[in-house]
């Protein structure tokens, strides 16, 4: 046989081994530093608590809320329907597999927006798209949604509308002693009227 065949076979084997040793390819497209800076600079990555409230109320299926606080904090209080991914587990595939950046808008939140933002950057670096930060975090959530401050009487219509929305949202999330009277909700014991059974003895054909 021709020596060249051995040579060619050798080259193929070496190339094959190189392919086998290549690092596993990341599923997500890597972001470039300049792009990342542009994203950091873009205020569109923030969503307000009002927008988040609206989306929860609308039961928007395209959003997923991610709580980056610890498990303990999450159990004490979190937003309805939020996933808890503690910061340390952010790149754990067990958790990231629950997220699908292709079809969902992922909204990170923490007590404020600092941890959420850090999580955002790691996620952006990892190649996630459609990621957002809830501006102000849960502290702001309490101030705006759970305890909305009534605007002064001189406020613009816009502000009053916003306040009305927040009160409505507060009712939705909190249940709202504000509107529903407490007594009404105490359901009367349901009395089921049963028909008198005809006793077997009573009848017959």
């Amino acid at each position, binding site marked *: 046989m*021709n020596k*060249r065949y051995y040579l060619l076979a050798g080259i193929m084997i070496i190339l094959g081994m190189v392919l086998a040793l290549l690092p596993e390819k990341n599923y997500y497209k890597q972001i*470039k*530093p*300049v792009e*990342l*800076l542009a994203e*950091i*600079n873009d205020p569109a990555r923030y969503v307000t608590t009002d927008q988040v409230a609206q989306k929860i109320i609308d039961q928007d299926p395209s959003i997923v809320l991610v709580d980056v606080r610890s498990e303990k*904090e999450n159990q*004490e*209080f979190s937003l*309805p329907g939020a996933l808890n991914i503690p*910061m*340390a587990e*952010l*790149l754990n595939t067990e958790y990231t597999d629950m997220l699908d950046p292709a079809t969902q808008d992922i909204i990170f939140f*923490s*007590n*404020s*927006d*600092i*941890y959420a*933002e*850090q999580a955002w*950057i*790691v996620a952006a*670096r*990892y190649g996630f798209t459609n990621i957002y930060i809830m501006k102000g*975090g*849960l*502290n702001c959530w*309490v101030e705006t949604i*759970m*305890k909305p401050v009534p605007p002064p009487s001189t406020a613009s219509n816009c502000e009053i509308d916003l306040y009305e929305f927040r009160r409505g949202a*507060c009712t*939705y*999330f*909190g*249940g*709202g*002693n*504000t509107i*529903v009277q*407490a007594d009404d*909700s105490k*359901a009367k*014991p*349901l009395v*089921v009227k*049963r028909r008198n*059974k005809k006793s077997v003895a009573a009848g*017959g*054909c």
Partner: protein
Amino acid sequence: MVHQRDPKRLTISVVVFTIIIVVGLITLSRPQYVFTLDAMATLETILAEQEEISPYETAKIVARKDQHFQLIDLRSPYDFLIGHIDEAINIPLNSLLEDENFATIKKISKSGKTMIFYGNDQSQANGPWLLLVQLGINNIKVLAGGYEYYILLNNSANVADDSAYYAEKAKYNYALVFQEISGDNNVFSTIEKQPQKVIPKRRKKKSVAAGGC
């Protein structure tokens, strides 16, 4: 076989092929900025929580004109003109990676100084810090609370509202607030509490047709 008639053909094609690959590798444009940390290492940096520097410490550094530190103002040039911390230089956030600015940062970093980044609030400096850490610049601190809190602190020695500084601390006991506003009537708790409707089970009537005596 074809190549046995022209035995040099294979060698020539191998040589040509190698040349193409080598030329390709040489002319491959190398990106100007390359991440030196991967996402996992970045996460570890975040979890270490070593980046914050308190406004009190910063104020002391400014007062004694410490040469081991360099303050860097990330706000817009306009904000910088209106007011900034003494000795700070202005590198607006959006031009952070322009050649000139990045060269400045690298120079400061090489000289062994620690940079203190600040923006209006802490989160404005957070992103640039993480970006540069990923590019291999390690000696950066972030001013906790940002410029606004720093000014507040300097104007009045005793600031009661330190929420900007401890931004990540829960300001409220959320669970308690939640209970306060909801009482018993909230939609989420009532879902479980709703009394189950009693559905009377009826016996199946024996159809008349089914039988009888």
